[in-house]
């Protein structure tokens, strides 16, 4: 073993009825991001730089729930959050409540590198962004028509709803939904926007890093913070590994999921895949989530107990895989 490794994700908890063309779109984006990361790793860019770069790419593309294309909060605006952690020294940075910062993960990095703190939120974070001269845009930039529609559906989700993206089977849409009562975070899976994007990397010097970014839960209360910006929950990296999680925020926070993977490796001596399997199996109770992880030995692993997880991974010895389902 040894050598670099990288994994990316676009969220866990996928509608099993997701149309094939959308599945293809997702896989294409994951592949593109993976290749971007790989080319940088081959040029010896450090893990912390690679995770930031790759997550920026995922934020910029409107397909997944982060940056542009973020899920909408209850009042129809976007409130984005992100965190990044450098396993080499366990420095970290996080941001929440952003609505004009084009790349939240980069602001999180600046919090880590350029501020005396580790976590800035809401107007304080936006002020810092202005001071740092990062790229700012109008809130509308992040809002996609599709998500405006999804927000409406989410608000109606207490009653039976249909997903207008999926071709209706005659007029039996109501029963179609009743037949697939898959829910995540209280929303039917057809309306749930898989939360977050993330990237974990170990570079060819064995340094691990992780980054996670999201718009959060569709129709969330304004001011709601999920697991993505919380160090130890959605993101964690130390000298042994780098981890990024996605799924039901509550379950990930209660389970301190990202830290858990590292803790069982550190304190129980488990290998990466064992640790990931253990955490997914034993630490989620009734919650649904997924995660990607790399180890300082060049291993990569992923695990999820949801229906699907948008993910891709690659290692220096040529292994590469992009997948959605089990």
């Amino acid at each position, binding site marked *: 073993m040894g050598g670099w490794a990288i994994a990316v994700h676009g969220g866990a908890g996928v509608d099993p009825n997701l149309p094939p063309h959308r599945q293809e779109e997702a896989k294409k984006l994951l592949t593109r991001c993976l290749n971007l990361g790989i080319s940088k790793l081959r040029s010896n860019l450090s893990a912390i730089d690679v995770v930031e770069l790759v997550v920026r790419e995922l934020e910029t593309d409107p397909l997944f729930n982060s940056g542009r294309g973020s899920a909408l909060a209850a009042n129809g605006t976007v409130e984005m959050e992100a965190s990044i952690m450098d396993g080499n020294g366990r420095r970290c940075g996080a941001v*929440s409540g952003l609505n004009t910062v084009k790349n939240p993960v980069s602001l999180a990095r600046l919090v880590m590198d350029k501020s005396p*703190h580790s976590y800035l*939120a809401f107007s304080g974070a936006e*002020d*810092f962004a202005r001071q740092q001269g990062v790229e700012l845009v109008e809130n509308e930039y992040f809002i996609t028509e599709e998500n405006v529609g999804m927000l409406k559906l989410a608000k109606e989700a207490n009653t039976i709803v249909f997903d207008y993206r999926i071709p209706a089977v005659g007029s039996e849409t109501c029963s179609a939904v009743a037949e697939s009562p898959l829910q995540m975070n209280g929303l039917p899976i057809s309306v749930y926007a898989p939360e977050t994007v993330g990237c974990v990397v170990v570079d060819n010097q064995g340094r691990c890093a992780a980054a996670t970014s999201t718009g959060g839960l569709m129709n969330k209360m304004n*001011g709601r913070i999920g697991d993505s910006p919380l160090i*130890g929950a959605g993101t964690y990296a130390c000298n042994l590994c780098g981890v990024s999680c996605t799924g039901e925020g509550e379950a990930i926070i209660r389970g301190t999921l990202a*830290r858990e993977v590292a803790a069982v490796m550190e*304190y*129980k001596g488990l290998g990466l895949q064992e640790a990931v399997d253990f955490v997914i199996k034993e630490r989620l109770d009734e919650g649904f989530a997924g995660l990607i992880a790399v180890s300082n030995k060049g291993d990569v692993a992923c695990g999820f107990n949801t229906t699907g997880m948008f993910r891709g991974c690659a290692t220096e010895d040529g292994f590469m895989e992009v997948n959605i389902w089990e």
Partner: protein
Amino acid sequence: MGWAIAVQGGAGDIPVTLAAERREPCEAAMRHCLKIGVDALKAQKSPLDVVELVVRELENNPHFNAGRGSVLTREGTVEMEASIMDGNTKRCGAVSGLTTVVNPISLARLVMEKTPHIYLAFDGAERFAREQGVETVDSSHFITQANIERLKQVQEANRVQIDYTKPIQKDEKKETPTADGDSQIGTVGCVAVDSHGNLASATSTGGFVNKMVGRIGDTPIIGAGTYANNLCAVSATGKGEAVMRATVARDVAALMEFKGLSLKEAAAYVIEESVPRGNAGLVAVSAKGEVTMALNTTGMYRACATEDGYSEIGIWPSVQN
């Protein structure tokens, strides 16, 4: 087995020369909070209720950095945060960026019990507070003269630092009597276990003096400042950034679970190995009714008691035999 409780009023650079009139109100508060916590446990109140009521008491006390008496941001405002966790269910609640809520810990509990979320912050949290009808007051209620002074001193020290070409060491002790270097006094917190092994933890703070507006520390981060599961309950204090990256509260529990360390050993390990000296302290109880209080700072206001009659109130590291 039996009940146990521990309370902390912040870890930091508390000089042994601290004037009596500064020390006594804090010691008295620790004693009082211990008593009301113990009385509540004896009256069979749940640990979750106990930790909330003790932390409310400390939030209301202007001598501690939480609720009234919170340290100020660089703009002279107050931004309070808190979190609470129930060991049995691992349900939790957290809030940040509060400016008018009299008892942040109670709002954190409401987030846990009345919303589908865990963590609400800033405007959204304030709005939720109003919806819930919790007690809110004008922000000036929380601001004390002592903290206005503290902010002034820190801002002046920073200005002075810029004037000199020689960098001032971060841990340089200040000599003046009023500048007692306690800008690190982090939080208040309480952990409790009842005789059935139910555990709970709660932590609350105004944050770091002269902090940037919008800065969030370890206190509302589950796993960093607060954690409880079926093994133990932990409340940590100190330099937020250090406690966060070391996931202090979670690590104590993880060491017990994965390495079989005792509560005391786990707490000592985390405090000694995972955070730099001068950065953190914690209080913790175990399902078995044990209690431990650990610090690597000069001092930490603290108190604890167990059902078998042990009790302790302290500020500086106890002389162990």
